[in-house]
């Protein structure tokens, strides 16, 4: 049940109507049931995995709380990580062992002799479970059983985040939520914006990018367009998912944390990670980087090493491939540079507009370069594409992309730049009486245009990029 499918719209509408018709006490069980229906719509077998992990985490948190002995948390964390390691990393582990074995003459197949299905959203709900155990062990009040089942399964955040932490949603889970017009209006608006970003923007860029990454000998221009296009595609795609998740949750009275804040307007790599996949950045900071840095607090030089380790973990979390690990390390290096050799450059970004713009362009370029690692299927492909760029293979003539694809990506980029530049102006205008009246009057027309565009431009319900993680 993909968020931009008609099936999801029907599911959401039905859940919304039923939820707000039920008495308060029946709403929580209903949301849990609906969440399992949503998750089971992909593969009902994995619903048992989710349920099992939920029951375990709820019980283990209480156990840890009852017997607060140092080190007691680790078995719980390990149990959470086990399904992730099995389902997501077995193939990766095997492939690496096999390649070492083959290097020593063993005749091992490069691939596992059996297929392992990846349960959707496993990376997200594993992190959520670990966060819960750690938070409870460090003083967070544990959830009741039903509250925890809902926290763990609530469908808008189940598959691809935002990674909601217990403290961020506790109040909404435990209070009596009432139907509020503003919540509904805001939720619907966010859902519509999510549909627009996904259906109109991300899905139209995807074929251009895919065609290049599927081709064997792309020229330099193809590679450049594909990397740039993918940078836009993944932003539109993932932020669209987050918009729909946040909007869907709001319809039921839940306030999820934001996941994106104009990341391509970032003026340093550190600023970028404060704006991109914000809930993951915070999770890694609080549960990986900070404990490591704290443990070696008497050796400040180790901080940069932990930064690299934490970012490599971010990469590996995204996928069981060396390309993701190297992508994480690339961002780790950028963050280290941000704290060391380029510290003054990025710090001066606020000194003047020009410096700010320069810092933004540099950050944007470095982040874009990293997307090649994220999208490539292998490090060999990365090397080939870098070679194409370095040698300007084919000059300015593309080997795969058509002019329309290039124009489309440039058009979207120009639109994004304009929106980034004018968002402050719009915010100011929106609170002034006269422009606010005009905006209010035009809003229905704008919504209808967007709805019509989504219907007309939507050909198929395409999967979100982050579903693979």
């Amino acid at each position, binding site marked *: 049940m993909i968020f931009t499918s008609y099936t999801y719209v029907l599911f959401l509408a039905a859940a919304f109507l039923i939820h707000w018709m039920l008495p308060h006490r029946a709403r929580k069980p209903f949301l849990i049931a609906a969440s399992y229906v949503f998750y089971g719509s992909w593969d009902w077998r994995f619903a048992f995995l989710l349920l099992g992990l939920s029951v375990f985490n709820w019980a283990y948190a209480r156990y840890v709380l009852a017997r607060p002995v140092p080190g007691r948390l680790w078995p719980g964390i390990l149990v959470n990580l086990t399904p992730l390691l099995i389902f997501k990393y077995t193939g990766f582990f095997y492939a690496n062992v096999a390649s070492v074995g083959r290097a020593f003459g063993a005749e091992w197949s490069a691939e596992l002799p059996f297929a392992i299905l990846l349960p959707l959203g496993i990376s997200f709900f594993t992190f959520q479970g670990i966060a819960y155990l750690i938070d409870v062990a460090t003083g967070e009040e544990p959830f009741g059983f039903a509250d925890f089942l809902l926290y763990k399964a609530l469908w808008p955040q189940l598959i691809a985040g935002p990674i909601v932490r217990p403290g961020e949603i506790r109040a909404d889970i435990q209070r009596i939520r009432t139907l509020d017009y503003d919540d509904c*209006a805001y939720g619907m608006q966010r859902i519509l914006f999510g549909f627009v970003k996904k259906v109109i923007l991300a899905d139209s860029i995807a074929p251009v990018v895919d065609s290049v990454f599927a081709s064997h000998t792309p020229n330099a221009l193809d590679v450049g367009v594909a990397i740039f296009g993918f940078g836009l595609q993944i932003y539109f795609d993932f932020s669209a998912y987050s918009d729909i998740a946040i909007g869907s949750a709001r319809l039921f009275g839940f306030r999820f944390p934001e996941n994106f804040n104009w990341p391509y307007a970032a003026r340093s790599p550190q600023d970028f990670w404060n704006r991109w996949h914000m809930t993951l950045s915070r999770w890694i900071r609080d549960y990986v980087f900070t404990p490591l840095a704290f443990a070696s607090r008497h050796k400040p030089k180790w901080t940069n090493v932990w930064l690299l380790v934490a970012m490599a973990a971010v990469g590996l979390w995204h996928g069981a491939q060396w390309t993701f690990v190297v992508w994480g390390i690339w961002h780790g290096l950028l963050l280290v540079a941000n704290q060391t050799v380029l510290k003054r450059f990025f710090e001066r970004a606020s000194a003047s507009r020009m410096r700010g713009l320069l810092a933004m362009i540099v950050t944007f370029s470095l982040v874009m370069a990293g997307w090649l690692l994220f999208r490539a299927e292998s490090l060999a492909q990365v090397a080939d594409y870098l070679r194409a760029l370095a040698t300007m293979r084919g000059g300015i003539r593309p*080997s795969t992309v058509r002019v329309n694809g290039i124009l489309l990506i440039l058009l979207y980029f120009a639109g994004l730049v304009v929106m980034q530049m004018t968002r402050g102006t719009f915010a100011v205008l929106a609170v002034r009486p006269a422009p606010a009246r005009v905006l209010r009057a035009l809003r229905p027309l704008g919504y209808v245009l967007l709805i019509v565009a989504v219907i007309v431009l939507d050909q198929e319900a395409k999967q979100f990029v982050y579903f693979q993680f």
Partner: protein
Amino acid sequence: MNVPAPGSGTLEIFSLFRDRRFWRGPAVWVVLLLLIVNGAVAVHRDIRAREAAAAPAAAGGRFALNPETANRPVRWDWSVGDQFETFLRYIPDSRKTRLVILSGMSQMYTINDNRPGDQTIAEWMDDALAPRGTRVFGLAAPNLSHEESVFLLLTTLAKPETHPDVFIFAVAFEKLREVDLRRQYATYLRSHPELIAEWLRTAERYRAKYPLAAAKMLSTLEQKERDESVNEASLESRLRRGVSRVSPLVAERRDLNSLLRIHLFAVRNFFLGIKNTSKRPIIRDRYDTNREFLGLLADLGRERGALVLLYIVPFNPSAENPYVPEEYAAFKQWLTQFAEETGTPLSNLENVVPSSDWGLFLGGPDFKHFKGEGHRKSAAALLKSFPAQLAPPAQTGAAGQ
């Protein structure tokens, strides 16, 4: 923690409608405007339907989309791929008759200045060959890619009743810029597991000989696997069909999409000064992939008992064309060599339709689509080019006269 009173909150949904903000907010306007948009689309659809209904009088019923109610024999897929599965049922049973499938791009079915009595190439050929026990059926679609021609061949080969004896493919140079399987074909592929298996088998078997084509076939399948609505039996597809029945906007979304794209292209052309004759250089990777698909087509035909015939499509001698001359010449040279090496019969028909038989497009001579007479001449040229494969020269019939 708040403890709700038993039964409290029931039917809270109605509080939304009692909220003044709901009635003063954009929701009501949005609903009203959407109703108006749907009404407008319905009117537009009716006007088009009326025009289509009027068309048969002038064009002999060609545009009555439903083949069940057509007042002429169904001898080509005039839904141009949109109702592919429906039209497959009209292919003459090849267990009872010799069957020729004619496939290619829009030139195969578009008739400029359509007049009563005009027919497509497939119809002219069928007229000529049917008396001799050979039937011809046209399976063409706009900008048909070479991957799609392989799809059409595999699809027809899959059943004994549609298994062609001869598969003619019209090679158009600019179509080597096209790749991918259109949604309608992908839908058919997805709903036929035996065809998926054959598609996979073909990709695997030819991976070494045609790596680009095989990789493309695999990626096509992978992509379509990910798209929920491609599977006709899925809840998503049924839901879309259900919503289409109540919302003209949803029902007409594909046509509106095409319309929108045409206008977007017009805007692009206006701003960038692009004309339909602007030079379109080859896109190397696509070009190479399509050449491999051509090889795959010939190999598949040979292997499975369907003779593949190729011809270079006619083009308007008096119109500027978008080909880069050196590239087009090199392509023709390659194609000739390819045909010789693979033993695939090839005919060059680029000059068989004189300027007078072409129509107009965007205010200038159409370089790709001709009038009814062009179809007749193309059919005659095909019959003349491949007499041994299609029929002896004496049996070329009406089109050849």
